[in-house]
Every structure is written in C-alpha cells, then in structure tokens.
C-alpha cells in the first residue's frame, strides 16, 4: 500500500505503525510519530494500524542549540 511519510509518497507493507518503523529501520525511541495529524503514543505504536493513503510524520529528536 502507499502512504505518505514526511510528505513523500512511499510504498510499504500493510501493518501497524511499529511495522512501518521496522521497515524503515527506525528505532521507535528516536522518533515521535504522527498519524494523520494525531500523535501516536509509544505504547500504541504496535497496536495502531496504518491504512492505505495515510499520512505519517516521523519527528526525530533535535537537541542541539549551542
């Protein structure tokens, strides 16, 4: 199925948000995930399904400033 990840259309296998993170090789502790403008809590990543056409945003931590 096709979803939009960080604004770009991408082909992924159907499954949960956690499955998509695994396919993209992203450690779930390193990102905040938004599914269709709703934050997905870390404890719900493995139980929240991603549907065809969904918009997913991965927000990485950015801690610098000095």
């Amino acid at each position, binding site marked *: 199925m096709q979803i939009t*990840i*960080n*604004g*770009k259309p991408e082909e992924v296998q159907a499954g949960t948000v956690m499955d998509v993170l695994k396919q*993209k090789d*992203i*450690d779930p*502790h*390193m990102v*905040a995930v*938004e599914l269709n*403008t709703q*934050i997905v*809590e*870390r404890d719900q990543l493995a139980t929240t399904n991603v549907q065809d056409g969904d918009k997913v*945003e*991965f*927000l*990485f*931590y*950015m*801690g*610098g*400033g*000095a």
Partner: protein
Amino acid sequence: MSFTEEQITRYSRHILLPEVGGKGQKKIAQAKVFVVGAGGLGSPVALYLAAAGIGTLGLIDGDVVDRSNLQRQVLHHTPDVGRSKVQSAKEKIFLLNPDVNVETYEDRFTASNAMDYIAPYDVVIDGVDTFPAKFLINDACYFAGKPLVHGGILRFEGRVFSIVPGQSACYRCVFPEPPPPGLVPSCQEAGIIGVVAGIIGTIQATEALKLILGIGDPLTDRILDFDARKTAFREIRVKRNPRCPLCGDHPDITELFEHEQEACQLQAPGALGIS
C-alpha cells in the same frame, strides 16, 4: 515613553511597517526576553533582538568561549576565547545598541533557579544544547505561563516551535520525554553546520517579535523543520495532547525536575534520518 530623534532614525525601517509603527516599536522597547544559552542559537537571537530595540535582554550561560564556538556563535569573537560568554555577549550587544538593557547571569539554568529567572520576562528563548535543559525550559515556561520559542539544531537540520502555555501544544505533547541516553546526539560531537544556527536563531527571534507585537500567525501548534542539505522546510501540524505528561488532562509532572544528563556517546552516524 517617547523616542529620541536618534531612536526614531534607528528604528525607522520598523516604524515604516504598518504592522509595527511607532506603537509596535514601543511594545518592542518595553518587552523583556530571556535567552537561555548564549551560544549558537542564542547569538543570532540576541543580536537581532538587540538590533530591533528590545527593552531588556536576559542572558544566562555558565560557559566560557571556546575556540570551537567561533564557527557559529557569532556573538563571540576571536579575542573572547576563554572569557565568560555572557560578558562577551553583553559587550557586543552594547556596541550594537546601547538602548538595550542587558541582564547577564553567569549560571546554569536548573530546576531550582528556573522559575526565579524567567519570572520577570515576557518571552523565553530556548538556546540550549541538551535534552534535560530543553525539557526543563518547556516545563518551567508551562508552570510560569510564559510563551516559549523552542529551537533545536543538529548537523544540517534545525527546528523551531513556539509554545503559548495553556493555549497551544507544548514540547512534551510531541516528545513526552528525552530520548534514552546516548541514542540521539545532542552534544557538540555530532557536528553542526554553523549557518543552521543562524537560520534557526533568526526564526526564533522573528517569533519572539511577533509574539511581542501580536502580529501574524505564531508558530504554535506547528513544528517547523529545516534541512540545509535540501534547503527545504517541512511543517508538521501538532495539537495539544490530552495524554501529555505536563499539560495533558491527567499530568504526571506537577513540579520542576531535571532529567538525567545524557552521556556524549553516539551511535553510528546514519542511525538518524530516514531518507
């Protein structure tokens, strides 16, 4: 208050703007902004706000200038190496605009002094480089009800996000807690292209001025990410999270505390970024 002839000339390009005018310039001249960190982000924020004629600029930083800072921390010049950052900053700001009242605090921003430090100020700017400090600033501004302009930079990327406590999403609405220690680089070892500090810092200063003037659309409930490699911005809409541990419906955090300081251990480069 009224402006002198010199001040009217100095701020004439602001006063010409219908959205600012003499009235707005007075708001700027009466505003107090607190900048946590006089480094990469703090430098452009302080310089541009000073040039804009901000009334009071509070600067807190306990560090001294290191030669490796000069690549991006434009408040500090070569002869300042080894000197207190806030002292160095105060001198540059005075040379740029002696109208600005600069309050300097050669200190670390901690859970025990945070509330006292931010109390007199109207807007707070995050210019710190550790996650514990970023979360502490977010929490302190929430408890004090102070608007905060968050900033973050890493390698070729940067982020800006404005927070009006009680009205818009806070940092913890999106990132409930810091990443596990060592997983995400936040220390100087990760590297930063100097100009990104300038880009993100000037956007933070812009947001502070907009909040002071009450003009335009603040960068609240949207996170603005910048990637210098692509010269591309990405805007992510966010909203207040009812499960936020700080500003949610059933908050766990009811007083200020500091998360454990992360060690400067990095995973292999490339662990970050998805494209």
